[in-house]
């Protein structure tokens, strides 16, 4: 990158806040997904004003900027696609205010998700959205991706927990959206902004809701001899009238993988397990636990175990939360998918994934938010083998096509980013995408921020091939191609 730009960035953020040597930049060329690109520079902003100055500089010089939190994203949202500035918010990591009386916290974007809950439990509150990466991921990144997590089944995803944002627009202007009130007069731009994947503005301050800690929590582990029985249980629980706080499923392969890693106490001979968490008033939890156990047994569960104490409960969750890491021990590479299907279609879809797995000769492990119908098939492959790499991508595409066939979505919580951009045309028409582009342009007219992400360039749509339904494409006048 031009050395005068580096000099100006250093002037804005400080000498130690800009990286431009190749060996430093290498660390910022990937996230937790599969794509890789090296940025031109990395700048660590420490104040809103610095973010604003960086954006103004970038706008003047027409240099793309990619905001980045902890880089735990799975869709390439934080990867600089071409010679660009990565704007890291990791040093803006202060909890600015814990306002218990208003059940709100005000945080900088670089605050780590779990640290906010850790800071608020002493007041009887916590921050509900809990992505599996919550020990590392930042709340700013969660806002960009509208992150979910196991416990969003009952309590909602990030957008349901954000009431206010301070945003720096690409031209450096700082605006406010919402505040501590639940909502405000006028358009709900706060809700609209969440999940915009860094394509509309850089979030520099976030007001989030704090949720009262439940009086009682219990976790059940239901064990199955077939995947089908477990999948049917998910449908039956949904219909029973009980909404668990979390309803997670791991298939037999994942169970063994997890056990080898952390000894969470899952039975290694199971074909599938369901991890079911219930929370609320003590009486409610006890009644629901009874009802859910009965449903599991009706659906041919081999056994339903109740976590005896908090330690056992934490251990059961440790298995789930470290599942992705456990896979890393047995396979050189894996490709995490994030599809969503209507909940009644879980049994069919798992059967289809099994077929795809056999067809390509690749192991596909399943660990996912069953209650939401949000699948996370993990496709194992060896990235040194080009054939396997290619097959893993094909298998992923077929899984996505299967989700779409059932009226589902290509992403439930990981975002579109770079990875799923080519699939957007399978879900949306060019009119849908054109309106999204127009709305993005209201915030980010020159596409300085996170360019070429989320919404495909329209000429790109034409190149979509493979088993996915092809979108009809006509170029739209006035749109950047």
């Amino acid at each position, binding site marked *: 990158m031009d050395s005068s730009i580096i000099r100006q960035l250093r002037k804005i953020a400080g000498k130690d806040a800009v990286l431009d040597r190749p060996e430093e930049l290498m660390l910022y060329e990937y996230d937790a997904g599969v794509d890789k690109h090296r940025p031109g520079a990395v700048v660590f902003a420490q104040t809103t004003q610095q973010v604003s100055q960086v954006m103004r500089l970038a706008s003047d010089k027409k240099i793309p900027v990619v905001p980045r939190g902890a880089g735990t994203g799975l869709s390439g949202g934080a990867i600089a696609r071409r010679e660009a500035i990565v704007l890291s918010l990791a040093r803006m990591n202060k909890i600015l205010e814990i306002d218990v*009386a*208003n059940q709100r916290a005000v945080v900088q974007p670089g605050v780590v998700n779990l640290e906010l809950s850790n800071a608020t439990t002493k007041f009887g509150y916590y921050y509900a959205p809990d992505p599996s990466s919550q020990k590392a991921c930042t709340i700013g990144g969660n806002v960009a*991706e*509208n992150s*979910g997590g196991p416990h969003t089944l009952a309590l*909602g995803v990030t*957008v*349901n927990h954000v009431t206010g944002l301070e945003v720096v627009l690409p031209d450096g202007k700082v*605006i*406010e*959206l919402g*505040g*501590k*009130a*639940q*909502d*405000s*007069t*006028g*358009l*709900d*731009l*706060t*809700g*609209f902004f*969440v*999940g*915009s994947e860094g394509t509309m503005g850089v979030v520099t301050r976030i007001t989030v809701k704090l949720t*009262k800690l*439940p*009086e009682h929590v219990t976790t059940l582990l239901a064990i199955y001899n077939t995947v089908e029985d477990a999948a049917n249980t998910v449908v039956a629980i*949904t219909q*029973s*009238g009980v909404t668990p706080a979390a309803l997670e499923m791991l298939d037999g392969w994942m169970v063994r993988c997890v056990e080898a890693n952390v000894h969470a106490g899952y039975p290694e001979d199971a074909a599938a397990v369901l991890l079911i968490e219930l929370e609320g*008033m003590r*009486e409610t939890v006890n009644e629901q636990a009874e009802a859910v156990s009965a449903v599991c047994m009706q659906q041919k569960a081999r056994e339903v175990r109740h976590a005896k104490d908090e330690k056992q409960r934490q251990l059961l969750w440790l298995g789930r939360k470290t599942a992705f890491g456990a896979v890393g021990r047995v396979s050189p590479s894996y490709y995490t998918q994030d599809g*969503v299907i*209507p909940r*009644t279609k879980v049994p069919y879809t798992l059967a289809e994934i099994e077929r795809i797995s056999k067809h390509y000769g690749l192991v596909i492990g399943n660990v996912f*938010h069953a209650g*939401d*119908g949000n699948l996370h098939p993990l496709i194992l492959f060896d990235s040194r083998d080009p054939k396997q790499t290619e097959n893993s991508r094909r298998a992923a595409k077929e899984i996505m096509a299967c989700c779409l066939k059932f*009226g*589902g*979505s290509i992403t*439930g*919580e990981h975002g*579109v980013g770079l990875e*799923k951009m080519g699939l957007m045309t399978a*879900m*949306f*028409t060019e*009119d849908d995408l*054109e*309106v*999204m582009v*127009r*709305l993005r342009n*209201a*915030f980010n007219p020159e596409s300085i921020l996170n360019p070429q992400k989320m919404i495909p360039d329209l000429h790109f749509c034409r190149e979509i091939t493979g088993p996915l339904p092809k979108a009809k494409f006509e170029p739209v006048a006035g749109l950047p191609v």
Partner: protein
Amino acid sequence: MSTVTSPASVDRELAAIVGSGNVRRTDFEINGVVPAAVVYPGSADEVGAILHLANARDLVVAPAGGLTKQQIGCVPERIDILLSTTRLNKVEEYDPGDLTIAVQAGMPFAEMQRQLGEHQQWVPCDASSLEHATVGGLLATGAAGPLKSTFGHMRDFCIGIQFVTADGKVVKGGGRVVKNVAGYDLMKLLTGSYGSLAVITRANFKVFPSPRQTRTFACSFHSLEEALQFRTRLFQSPLTPMCMEIISPGASEYLRNQGTVRDPDHYSPEQPVSLPAVEWQIVLRATGSDNILGRYSRELGSAVTRMLEGTAEEEFWGWICHFEQSVLARHRNAMVLYTHLAIQNVGPALQAMQRVAPDYNMIPAAVGRAATGNLVLALMPLSVDPPSAMQYANCVSALRGMLPPGSSAEVAHCPTEAKPHFDVWGTTPTDVNMMRAVKRAIDPKNILNRGRFIV
């Protein structure tokens, strides 16, 4: 009153799109303005063709559903086309097993709720006028009632949306699954946009199992302060009531069967039908088994002054939801505000209302969500003199001036004559220029609800 006659050529073109029987005249007024024509499209494509025509001819369009909230907002300069969605009234897809439903925008909400009820499911929205209000209208106005405390409002259940942009494009956002981050969240953008961005033609919702049993606990207090202290204790307790309403002393008058409504012009609020209440109330509604409801009774203890179940309970919550309508049925000149407040600002806002009202010869009454800060404030002018426009303008300005920073309060109802004298929507913490940029992006000619909403 001003009426605009649409050129005959426009009528003909509209008739060519929807059939001549579906282009009609109306005497329905929106803040004194009578739309030149009403059209009833039968499909999203027809909505597209109408908007395409309107956009090309610079005709101002007001999207409409059950006409329950059309008086909200500023006085429009003109309305050329009232675009009614009432023919778009079908359930497109309902799979009880998936707990999702897809309906057309003109479907009456109550009808959708009835169909869901057959499977013991519901969309937890209890806004007012649900018999007439349409699904699209409720979304467009971001309407909510007491259930908002626990469930949020329409934006939180809406998982997919189809709408038509001002230039006639039929567009969708979201989908039919409960978790989905593909593309921008257009559901959030359109909910509460008051028809100013696009015409909603279809919506998909996640639905919930409906509660099998509920009980209501009313607790009375001698002062607002005591009521709010009780609220704080509730927040700290393990109890998780489904609804938590605060009711001002003046509101009790409107939370009862009204009997025959008297001539609003002759009714004097300073002579209410019953003795004036002096107590503030916090009313909780809980759901669960006998065991769980029993625990509520035990923990709330002597704070409870009245317990309601069954039809008496349903009737009571009906009154709460229809508070605004009851006020307006009896006081044509009443002013109603909707507030958006941080939780701790509920007290200051209610104090402000009580303090400001007498200064402007108004009687105050309020009902609202104590746990979310969404209050409905009603101010009834005393019949000492005919109310003047400036009385409303000054009252609103004094009230807003006393609200803590970050609050917003829009005037949902007041006499049309008063509206030009103050800002109906008021200030908001969200950047208004950004809102206008968004509006320009999808309605550049400003044909949708021109001059009525904040954008």
